């Protein structure tokens, strides 16, 4: 039992646990916090996969940005209504069944698939490679992404603008 295995299992339990908490807890605010935990756990997984840059982005953008935005949104909407947001579930059985069967089938397929057992060395620092790729091969999508972000920010602020 190497450290890697132990680390993976710890992270896995953490991730699955927090994810379950996200979808099961009755309190919306708690959900968001559990999500933040899950996202952080994902960053840990990224670290284990030697993707430090991505782990950083994950924490900064997701756990930091997204969660903050969601919290803001909740606060704003609750202020708008003046009551707490209800956070109940519907069709738990049907949803659970679909999700469970989905999981089962997926795992079954994974079990049968011939998958690589070990990592292949990247040949260089992944962060550097990402940077190179973004500036060369993926330059156009990268620029488009920038435009997309701009547009969506404008759109979001337009949609959520105060009522006249």
């Amino acid at each position: 039992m190497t450290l890697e295995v132990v680390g993976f299992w710890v992270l896995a339990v953490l991730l699955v646990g927090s994810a379950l908490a996200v979808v099961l807890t009755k309190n919306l605010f708690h959900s968001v916090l559990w999500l933040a935990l899950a996202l952080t756990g994902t960053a840990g997984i990224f670290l284990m996969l030697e993707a430090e840059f991505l782990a950083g982005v994950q924490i900064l953008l997701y756990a930091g940005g997204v969660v903050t935005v969601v919290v803001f949104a909740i606060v704003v909407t609750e202020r708008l209504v003046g009551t707490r947001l209800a956070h109940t579930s519907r069709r738990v059985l049907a949803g659970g069944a679909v999700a469970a069967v989905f999981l089962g089938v997926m795992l079954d397929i994974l079990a049968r698939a011939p998958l690589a057992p070990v990592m292949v060395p990247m040949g260089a620092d992944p962060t550097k490679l990402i940077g190179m790729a973004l500036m060369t091969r993926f330059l156009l999508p990268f620029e488009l992404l920038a435009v997309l972000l701009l547009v969506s920010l404008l759109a979001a602020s337009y949609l959520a603008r105060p009522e006249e």
Partner: protein
Amino acid sequence: MMLTVLLTPITVFLLLALVAPLRRSGRPAAFISILGALGTFGAAVQTWVLVDRLDAPIQRVWTWLPDSQGALATVGYLADEQSAIMILLVTLVSLLVQIYSLGYLSDEPAPAIGRYYVYQSLFAFSMLGLVLAPNLVQLFICWELVGLCSYLLIGFWYKKPSASRAAVKAFWTTKAGDVGLLIGIVLLWRHTGTFDFGELQQMAGAGLVGVDGLALITFCIYLGAAGKSAQFPLHIWLPDAMEGPTPVSALIHAATMVTAGVYLLVRMAFLFALTPDVLLLVAWVGAGTALMAAILACAQNDIKRVLAYSTVSQLGYMMTAIGAGFASAGFFHLLTHGVFKALLFLGAGAVIHAVGTNDITHMGGLARRMPQTMIVFLVGTLSLAGVPLFAGFLSKEEILAGVWAGGLTGPFVMLLMGAFLTAFYMFRVVFLTFFVKPAHASGHGHGHAPHDAPMTMGLPLWVLAAASMTIGIYFMLHHPAEAVEAPGWLAPVATGVALGGIALAWATFQRQIINAESLARATGPLRTVAAHGFWVDEAFVAVYRGILMTLAALVGWVDRYIVDGVLNVISAWTVSGGDGLRRIQTGKVQDYVLAVGAGVVAILWWLRGTM
């Protein structure tokens, strides 16, 4: 020449029908039509002379229905002995009736007169086409066209409900017979491969016409003849047809069109000779019709209806003769009857025109006011009654001789009884109309004293009366070569029967020795039956209303509510099915996600199976 006979009336018809101002002008149209009829008559005379001289039929045909073998059906003319003399009758009566109508319809508005002469011209053409038809197809075409003219002319006063009903009734009844005729023609075509009279006659003569199934064919053809010539039970339309103007009754419903059935059977006699069973039927039905119609004629008070039933009765005589195998006797009676019955109708028309009613009980004592009319009417009556020296005597005697020679004792007795009744009811009309004092004084609705008809109406009457007399005397002197030698006792018996009928009528209505009412009562239930016309009308109405209309209503209902209903049920199910399926479209996005998820799972499951 033959073409002139056919083309003149059709040209007049087209001229009047298409040139509306001319038609609406009334009397000018009438003059053109009469002129045309005169020309046609002249051409007919020439044709007759020509045929007589050549002593051979003249035939000419043109292709009408082409097919790959050249011609399926032709049209043209065939002028032989029979048709030549028949067109003489048709054109003569037609001419006289057209002249007569000028006076008779003088009170009508101009457009109506124009319309009348349009129909008259069309009728003349169709009737002549029928008579001159060289084959069954043309005969049928003209057969239907004369039926159409009859329909149009009966319904001439279409604003009168009874007239328009009678017109339709006439059309339907004859059409029912025509269905038979059409079937017969089709069957015969399949049987022999030709429509042509000449060819058929040759084949029949050479024994090439198979007898198997021929009875059905002749029976079907007879059905057509029975409808047109008002044989029981298809006679019901003829009395009602009296709703038309009286000249029309004289022309179409006495002298020409109704005899077309007889003419057809005369034409086809060679074929009927091969099917004795059908001939027997023809004879019995004919005799029955003759007697029944004579009985019914005694019970009528409408002068035209008496004459109409008398026509039915006389047509029965002709048919019986044909049935007995003596078509020539029937044809001879057709000709003489055509003349004197036209005379009777036109005379009756003169009376009606003068007194303004059809009811003989409202007439009476007209002999002094209308002496000319009385004389010609009497000529016609004597002829119809079968008194010697008059046209009807000869032909009727010939029929009786033929029926006796044919060994048909039953029909012979019936015809003899019919002859007695004929004399009786005709003289009943004569006495009540012209001699006795009117029972109901209010009869003369015209407001002025009735008097003899004007020249236009008088002339045709005298011509016809003269013709009746001439034929009677001529043939009395030059006795035609009869197909059968009449037994010596027949002439006295027939004369005696006729005189007996006259005597009874005289005793009852003129001298009133016998009370008319008690005489009627003496006939017992027959009187009730006669009053209802043997319920034949009711039977037809029952078939029409009870069976046909019910069936139609049933089919209509089935169509709307079953055939279409099933369709609409399918449609409604489709709509409800859509309604039901619509509900799975909840509009809730998560349900869609659920469905998408389930779908993805299904696809994965399938993929897993392929791995």
